């Protein structure tokens, strides 16, 4: 049996008396595209924050490739090959688009805290950054300040920064939030392209996106996973329909 890319064991998180995550167990295999869905306030973002080290779990553990990372700082978890995007766009607004991508590259390309390299002289970094800009279709925006980009472009840049470092586990938190249909289609294509051969965990409200993209779906309701299976099974599940999906899915089918 292979070691799962992400494994959550009895993960719990409370804020004061409020139990937000109540004992989540989940295994995500290498190369799997795993979606987490659930109604507002179900704890999806909290789950992401626990996995990525933004919050420390109250109890239970998070394992990346079998290594216990619970309680580690975000940068330590990132160095172990996990990268995430944010629900609210989280970029460097006062830096150019190119520099945003470059910041995502520096650590994994070995420049770390270097003060003995001239950054513009590093051809490998520049080329890699330009290649990523090409992938996310922002080459034409290369030298603009990231804060001046249109919303959809900022979302694409967010994904670009996330994948730049070459992490093999990618977590995307509502990458399509607030986008039009055509923009969503573009972003989904982009996600598919840039996460090829990688493990993907995604939170999204747009059911079209979920069923289009995911190999497996977990349904999170009140901090518990009530179902975790392939899309068709989740769609058919009575428990899920009852708890949450019913109406949405019918709309989707109509």
């Amino acid at each position, binding site marked *: 049996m292979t070691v799962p890319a992400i494994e959550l064991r009895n993960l719990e998180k409370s804020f004061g008396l409020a139990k937000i995550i109540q004992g989540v167990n989940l295994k995500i295999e290498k190369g799997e595209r795993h979606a987490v869905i659930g109604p507002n306030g179900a704890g999806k973002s909290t789950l992401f924050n626990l996995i990525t080290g933004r919050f420390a779990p109250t109890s239970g553990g998070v394992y990346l490739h079998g290594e216990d990372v619970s309680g580690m700082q975000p940068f330590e978890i*990132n160095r172990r090959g996990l*990268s995430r995007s944010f629900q609210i766009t989280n970029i460097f*607004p006062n830096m150019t688009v190119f520099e945003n991508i470059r910041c995502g590259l520096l650590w994994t390309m070995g420049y*770390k*805290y270097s003060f003995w390299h001239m*950054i513009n*002289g590093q051809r490998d970094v520049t080329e890699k950054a330009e290649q990523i800009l090409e992938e996310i279709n922002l080459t034409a925006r290369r*030298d603009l300040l990231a804060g001046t980009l249109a919303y959809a472009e900022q979302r694409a840049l967010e994904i670009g920064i996330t994948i730049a470092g070459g992490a093999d586990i990618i977590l995307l938190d509502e990458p399509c939030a607030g986008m039009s249909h055509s923009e969503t289609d573009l972003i989904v294509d982009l996600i598919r392209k840039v996460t090829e051969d990688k493990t993907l965990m995604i939170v999204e409200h747009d059911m079209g996106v979920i069923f289009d993209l995911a190999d497996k779906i977990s349904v999170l309701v009140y901090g518990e996973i009530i179902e975790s299976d392939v899309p068709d099974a989740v769609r058919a599940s009575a428990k899920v329909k009852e708890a949450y999906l019913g109406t949405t899915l019918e709309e989707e089918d109509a």
Partner: protein
Amino acid sequence: MNTASKTQAVSNPNRRLISLSSLLPWAFAALFLLCLPLVFQSSAALTIMNQMAITIVFALSYNMLLGQGGMLSFGHAVYMGLGGFFAMHVMNMVEYDGLWLPLPLLPVVGGLFGMTFAFLIGSFSTRRAGTVFAMISLGVGELIAACSIIIVVFFGGEEGISGDRTMGPEVLGYDFAAQSEVYYLTVIWLLVATVLMYLFSRTPIGRIANAVRDNEERAEFLGYSQRHVRWMSFIASGFFAGVAGSLFAINFEILTEENLNLATSGSILLITFLGGVGFFVGPIIGAIVFTLLQTVLGLYTEIWALYLGILFVSCVMFFPGGFAGIIAMHRRPLALGKLNLLVGPYLKVAIPAITSVLSLAAVLEISFHKRHSFGDDHEMSLYGITFDSHGYQALGFAIVIAAISLFLVSRILPSIKAAWDEANHAGDAQ
């Protein structure tokens, strides 16, 4: 600024490490600085220029924190002061204990001490940015300033400590007794420190410092510990502050509590902000303007600090980008070839604007004279006019002139705004 960048052409990065165009400004600056003493030969002028050079190094090191790292420090004088005090003690060791150290290398020593203290204090102060960092810097600043009075052996109490820079081994036949020799020593260090700090801003750690400043959380999710990034900037900044302190020790041969108290920390914040924190050259401009204002204005009026304060407040309110920001605002009109549209309106507003500044200053000066002149000294001289400061005529006249000129300025402002919009508008006239 936002719109300005939108139309910037997609350019290829400069792939060569050193290109002629990036080297040219440095070479020009170096040449200029080395020729300056040929024009200004008086000892007083050299002192002002040395003071300026020291302030530039100090302000640039401060901007490594504020502008590039997003750390608002209220106690940066600590690192300059400690670097200076250690440099002075080393200078005295050269004189009395026969330590062999050529004077031009003294700033390295001071820099290393500044760096050591930045390492120690930064280990806990850089944990968080924002208010926490600011408060710790304030506390440490107050602490060290208090220590300087208490630990007399090291800091010399209220009198401070002094030394003699000429006692070291001669370098190329110079013993640095003459002011001009010290000028060249200072200027070479200014150039070296400035180039090094500029290069630092273009290294991976320099850029990541910007990233942490803009969005520390995002940087953490890219593999960088925000704390380590800030700490490293802080250590580098401490080194250059120590260099500035050593240059101060060499120039003035005395260090006192004043070199590390909160007033000095406050003024370097003011200088850096005035020059513009968002630009590498900002602190340089700020240091030059501040030193000139301080020394030149100080010759003419006792209330120069008040003017400086007003300048600072109006800068924060109306031009948060500082002097460098004002210059940078004109890049877009320049790129569009429309800078000429602004010349007319600027000239038009210049006369009433200058008049209003001068007349407002006159109001302050007259009021000050009235309150603080000795006994029956009613006679006052301002702008070449001698008058009675205690009468109401002079004050009334100044107020009327100020009101008229301010009114004129307010009438011209809309046309400046229109010209500004037009100059920033790509394409033909609207």
